[in-house]
């Protein structure tokens, strides 16, 4: 039976745009263009490489998001994924990371999987905890923050580069992995890939399909509440140290005062 790889991807506001919050303190998705999170492109890339190396694998991309999130799925399909699953329900609006992991886990139970691949974090929320939450909910091993990943038989192996050490890790399938932005440059969609993407199947689920109650997700179901948001103060001009023979010392003193050295 072929290897079933599912990549969890997120549709996020373009980080180069002017991102804002809506009146309910959730991300304002209307005022800025969205796209497939760049960090999730690495997940799609690694899934495709594992599938190509295996020769007998199927790559599914899974997202939880509003109607426009289909653009993120389409991008992943144009890169080469085989099919997509889109969980979309108005009641999901405002769901926190705990609820998101619940929705993803239920969707993964529906699709079936041997390997779940995630990016290291989203580029909007940047929490980076979904892979661990997913593994816990699914009761499978987690091997996170990998800069290299491969599958041999029923084992997934990977390398995690830490500050002090490099760890070589492995886990039996099924498992959840996350990959970093050092794992290898994501491919660009080819013309053929773009043309083929429209014809690939996209399955839709709502909360009822997944057996999730509206009260378990959304703003009401969230474990955390955002009371208020304030824009960070604009950057001010930095400190200029004029070198009159003591420049090096002054620079060191400044850095020491800021606790950089």
């Amino acid at each position: 039976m072929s290897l079933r790889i599912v990549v969890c991807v997120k549709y996020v506001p373009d980080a180069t745009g002017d991102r804002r919050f809506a009146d309910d303190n959730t991300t304002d998705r209307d005022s800025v263009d969205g796209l497939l999170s760049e960090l999730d492109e690495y997940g799609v890339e690694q899934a495709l490489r594992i599938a190509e190396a295996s020769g007998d694998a199927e790559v599914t991309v899974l997202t939880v998001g509003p109607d426009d999130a289909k653009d993120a799925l389409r991008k992943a399909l144009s890169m080469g994924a085989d099919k997509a699953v889109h969980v979309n329900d108005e009641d999901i609006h405002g769901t926190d990371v705990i609820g998101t992991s619940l929705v993803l886990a239920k969707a993964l139970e529906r699709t079936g999987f041997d390997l779940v691949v995630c990016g290291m974090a989203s580029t909007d929320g940047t929490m980076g905890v979904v892979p661990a939450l997913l593994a816990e909910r699914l009761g499978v091993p987690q091997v996170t923050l990998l800069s290299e990943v491969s599958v041999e038989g029923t084992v997934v192996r990977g390398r995690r580069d830490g500050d002090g050490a490099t760890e070589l890790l492995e886990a039996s399938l099924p498992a959840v992995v996350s990959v970093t932005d050092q794992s290898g440059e994501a491919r660009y969609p080819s013309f053929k890939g773009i043309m083929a993407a429209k014809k690939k199947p996209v399955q839709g689920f709502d909360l009822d399909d997944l057996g999730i109650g509206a009260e378990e997700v959304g703003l009401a179901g969230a474990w955390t509440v955002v009371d208020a948001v304030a824009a960070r103060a604009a950057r001010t001009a930095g400190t200029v140290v004029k070198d009159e023979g003591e420049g090096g010392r002054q620079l060191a003193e400044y850095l020491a005062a800021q606790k950089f050295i």
Partner: protein
Amino acid sequence: MSNDFDLFRISEEHEMLRDAVRSLAESKIAPFAAEVDEQARFPREALDALTANDLHAVHVPEEYGGAGADALATVIVIEEVARVCASSSLIPAVNKLGSLPVILSGDEALKRKYLAPLARGQGMFSYCLSEPDAGSDAAGMKTRAVRDGDFWVLNGVKRWITNAGVSEFYTVMAVTDPELRSRGISAFVVEKGDAGVSFGAPEKKLGIKGSPTREVYLDNVRIPADRMIGAEGTGFATAMKTLDHTRITIAAQALGIAQGALDYAAGYVKERRQFGRAIAEFQGIQFMLADMAMKLEAARQLTYAAAARSQRGDGDLTFFGAAAKCFASDAAMEITTDAVQLLGGYGYTRDYPLERMMRDAKITQIYEGTNQVQRIVMARNLP
């Protein structure tokens, strides 16, 4: 009335292609554009990036191993590459120009032999029509091809050959019967490795400096008869039919160069402060930007309409191809000149990309038929 149909709007797939090429061009081609121009060197990085992503010759049909892109998709690829580096955009553009005679008029065996390696990235294709004494009057060419049994022997000089020396394959137009003038011209595929093929010194040009332009010398080049493209005497017709399609790719370059200049200038005027405010707040600047964007969008609509005609093979293609090339290149010259003006003294320096874009824009008014020749073509083919 329903709004859920595509009236006069390009498809979602074409927009996705634009996003993909723009992203590739910005990360893999743009970083080298200034250096390629400054050193007048071939943009090897661009060729590698385009080939790796199957964008170097997207027009090649799928049955010959190509991406099978339609004419509009090909325009978008060229446009987005030209937006960051005009020299690099000559890779997909000239691969189409050089190989289109084979696609339009070649027999099956010739297509299989030459389109497959082009699609695989194993050899670029150049187009050899002009000669030292035959430019706008291309039919006045002197390069001769003389039959010798199962071979043709070619002698002559071709001038202004884009990517000469880098390309593996050359479509060469040569006189096979001097009595018949344009009907006595035939087209051939010549390979770089054929004995007797050599190249002149690279021309020292105003712009598109990264794309080598050289003479091609044919000195008793003996090639098998099956290298002829189409029937004897059809070469000039093939050459002209090719230009109907590929003038649209020159329009695409012009659009890209102009878009790159407009994007840069529009960003600059918001940053540049004089008299206590961003110069973008002055109406004199705003009017210039509005005119630039208006001309560019008009040129784009005409070019895309022409591309659709190229794809369908409509009867009015000749007019549309010439009109798109002429209008877009004139617009690009005006827009890039105004973009330099918006940057003032900075625009005139090589520390900013605009003077390069202005120099690169100029060629689009000249090659594949000067804009004066385009007006002759349009006048003879009014819609």
